[in-house]
């Protein structure tokens, strides 16, 4: 009866040992799979963050290029903003210069007009002289009539004087007509110059204001993007640092594997005590074994990786 019981116990204990062995290798294999999965996922995440980091860096570089073209003072007149500004200044300077010169021309036209008026006065004087000359010729003709034959020669002279007086009158008329035409042309030049002098600068002011607003807005966008990209960089850095959990998970999993293996060993030893120690002498080695097993219940200490290992050089 006792022998049969002992035999059954041995069989049960062997089966127990086989089950414990099978369970520990299953647990070991599961933990190994978990470790591989964590390692793979971490590697993929790491690559994604690296790619994100690189994309953010190249985006920032591209934006820097654009903003350099707009604002970089080192590029001086070649930068878009400053060359547009310079062009506008040049345009306004040119308009003002043309206006000043046109007003100056109009001032000189006034002088010229005064001189031309003087010519008309002279023409009037010539007219006066012609009238007097004609009067003298008339009187001379009367005298030649009185003188009869003796005055015939003098009559020719009197006629010639009259002809010269008429010619003077024609000449002064011609002068007056020329002056009149000249005045017409002067008035035309005056009108043209006044038109050249007068330009409304409101549009230039509006354009200048628009340019200033555009530059201000671009500057604001630039600063905003700078801040945003810095935030992206910081976040990527944080994420990469957070990936250090792989190391900690690996440590925990390794410790779990060790714990399971030790549990298996303790089971084998317990079975050996039950199988080999004589009845009545099992308690002492079993108590000793349980004492030893208590360490299995202790928490596993995990070493956190140093910050330096996780630091990513951003930009």
């Amino acid at each position, binding site marked *: 009866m006792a022998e049969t019981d002992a035999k059954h116990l041995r069989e049960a204990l062997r089966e127990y040992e086989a089950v414990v062995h099978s369970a520990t290798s299953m647990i070991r294999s599961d933990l190994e799979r978990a470790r591989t999965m964590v390692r793979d996922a971490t590697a993929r995440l790491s690559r994604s963050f690296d790619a994100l980091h690189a994309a953010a860096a190249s985006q920032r570089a591209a934006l820097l290029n654009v903003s350099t073209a707009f604002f970089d003072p080192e590029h001086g007149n070649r930068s878009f903003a400053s060359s547009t500004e310079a062009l506008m*200044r040049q345009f*306004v*300077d040119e*308009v*003002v210069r*043309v*206006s*000043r*010169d*046109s*007003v*100056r021309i*109009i*001032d000189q036209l006034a002088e010229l007009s005064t001189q031309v008026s003087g010519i008309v006065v002279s023409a009037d004087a010539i007219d006066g002289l012609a009238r007097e000359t004609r009067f003298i010729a008339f009187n001379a003709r009367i005298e030649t009539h009185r003188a009869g034959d003796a005055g015939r020669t003098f009559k020719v002279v009197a006629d010639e004087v009259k002809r010269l007086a008429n010619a003077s009158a024609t000449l002064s008329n011609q002068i007056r007509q020329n002056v009149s035409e000249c005045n017409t042309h002067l008035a035309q030049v005056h009108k043209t110059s*006044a038109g050249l*002098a*007068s*330009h*409304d*600068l*409101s549009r*230039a*002011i509006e354009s*200048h204001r628009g340019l200033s607003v555009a530059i201000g807005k671009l500057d604001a966008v630039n600063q905003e993007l700078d801040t945003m990209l810095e935030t992206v960089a910081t976040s990527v850095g944080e994420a990469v640092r957070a990936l250090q959990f792989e190391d900690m998970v690996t440590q925990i999993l390794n410790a779990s594997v060790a714990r399971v293996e030790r549990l298996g060993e303790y089971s084998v030893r317990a079975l050996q005590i039950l199988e080999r120690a004589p009845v009545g002498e099992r308690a002492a080695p079993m108590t000793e074994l349980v004492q030893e097993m208590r360490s299995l219940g202790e928490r596993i200490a995990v070493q956190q990786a140093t910050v330096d290992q996780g630091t990513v050089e951003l930009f």
Partner: protein
Amino acid sequence: MSLETVKQGDSCRVIKINGRFDFSCHSAFREAYSGSPTGTEFIVDMAEASYMDSAALGMLLLLREHVQQQGGKVTITNCRGQTYDVLQIANFHRLFKIVQ
């Protein structure tokens, strides 16, 4: 437009611009400074001016040339709104003493 010249003592003339300061002021403006004694100080008062164009700027430059030849100085006062913007865009601050 209208333009008024006020003599302040022997050596100062105030040219007051009313309304639009443009080519229509030309003769009156020229008269305001021509024949002025050497060393005359000019004050162009823009308090009542509502608008100015490039012709006005040209006239101011000719006044400046006159003053440079004769000695004396030009001050532009009471500029605001459009007239101030025009003087600003033409960089007249480099050439004139401008008081807002």
